[in-house]
């Protein structure tokens, strides 16, 4: 029986830098907004985090990202994305993120997976956090940790949409899948 999983995929002692620094990449729509909320809470979880949300149009260098950050939160595109993936600056951001070597945590859907067909050119996140219920694209996820979050879907809605109910432990707002 595997030991109980901590909801924290990256507990603070495991981060190699003195201060945990995370790059939160926020896209133009709802997923990006969720990334902003995530960044704010991450900041309050650790007083000294150097969380940054980068929305500039500059060219993001893969090596600089690998050096400056411990992990990337991918909040660029979600399940709604079809058109946005091809437009700047999202396309450039995703092109860069596909090559980083530090872990990527994707919110809801790995950015670009919905529009893409799957394959080696896709973003490969280490952790996926499905929101509300896992999306179709999550079937292809092969990373290390898959969490369900967004503990707000009433039972009636879960039944109506055939979402198999998941037991969140106690009053936790995430469950490891």
């Amino acid at each position, binding site marked *: 029986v595997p030991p109980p999983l901590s909801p924290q995929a990256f507990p603070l002692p495991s981060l190699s*830098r003195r*201060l945990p620094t995370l790059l939160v990449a926020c896209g133009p729509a709802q997923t990006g907004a969720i990334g902003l909320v995530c960044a704010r809470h991450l900041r*309050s979880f650790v007083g000294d985090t150097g969380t940054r949300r980068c929305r500039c149009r500059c060219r993001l260098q893969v090596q600089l990202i690998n050096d*400056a950050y411990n992990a990337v939160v991918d909040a660029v595109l979600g399940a709604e994305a079809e058109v946005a993936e091809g437009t700047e600056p999202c396309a450039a951001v995703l092109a860069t993120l596909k090559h980083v070597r530090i872990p990527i945590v994707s919110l809801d859907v790995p950015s670009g997976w919905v529009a893409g067909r799957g394959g080696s050119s896709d973003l490969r996140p280490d952790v996926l956090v499905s929101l509300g219920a896992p999306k179709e694209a999550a079937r292809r996820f092969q990373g290390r940790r898959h969490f369900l979050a967004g503990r707000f879907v009433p039972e009636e809605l879960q039944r109506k949409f055939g979402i198999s109910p998941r037991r969140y432990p106690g009053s936790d707002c995430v469950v490891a899948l």
Partner: protein
Amino acid sequence: DRCRCFPRRAMHVPSAGSGPTGLRFLGQEEAQAIDQELFTEYKFSVDQLMELAGLSCATAIAKAYPPSSFTTSQPAVLVVCGPGNNGGDGLVCARHLKMFGYQPTVYYPKRPSKPLFEGLTTQCKKMDIPFLPEFPTEAAFIDELYGLVVDAIFGFSFKGAVREPFGSILSTLERVTVPIASIDIPSGELWLHLPEEGARQGGPSSSLAMGLVAGWDVEKGKADGLQPDMLISLTAPKKAAMHFTGRYHFLGGRFVPPALQEKYALNLPAYPGTDCVLQLT
């Protein structure tokens, strides 16, 4: 070339841990000033903070009174919601309690006609949380049906006299024997007019030197005001909390940005990990 997106090194911001002066208890004006700053400077919406506040309350309740600890056949909770934001916190709390496996029932006699409160009410109703048409007439009925009462009647910004039906409700709740969990500040005029120095021995009911507190009739004998078993202080504890003598005091509302904590020297102890509540006692 490095753009400004890349930190030279992560900025070191000293976290607001316990200072040498310890945890601070806020006066009404100060608490309101912090709230104002959260809305006007930090651009939080009322919805956002109310959701986090209500979630904290439900989480604290789940820690202190887990469903397995109830002697009633179901973990039944009565949530009494007042006419303002404290009531809104209660509605959010009820919804999360339902998610956590409790059976909440709400009493919400005075409902503001604003989308925020109408929405919160709809969410509860669509999750099969019953709304009582009238308040139980006897404390004994409450004791029999529920294992816990959540007091979400009045918060720290309450001013003036207690209007009906809340006077009668509070009188009944004072006689209830099941635990009461109060959100932010125990409801009732007694708690708003406490002296601002530290707790007197025996709690707010003890000393005649308290003088004439509005609504507290010395002749009534054991008219102690609400004596909750649990208090969930939101953001930071208020001065009234210095007189709290219940078993559980939790801090919730983990949304005050570090810079704001610094500015007001809140000296909040560190929340454990990613928890949204901190047990103070």
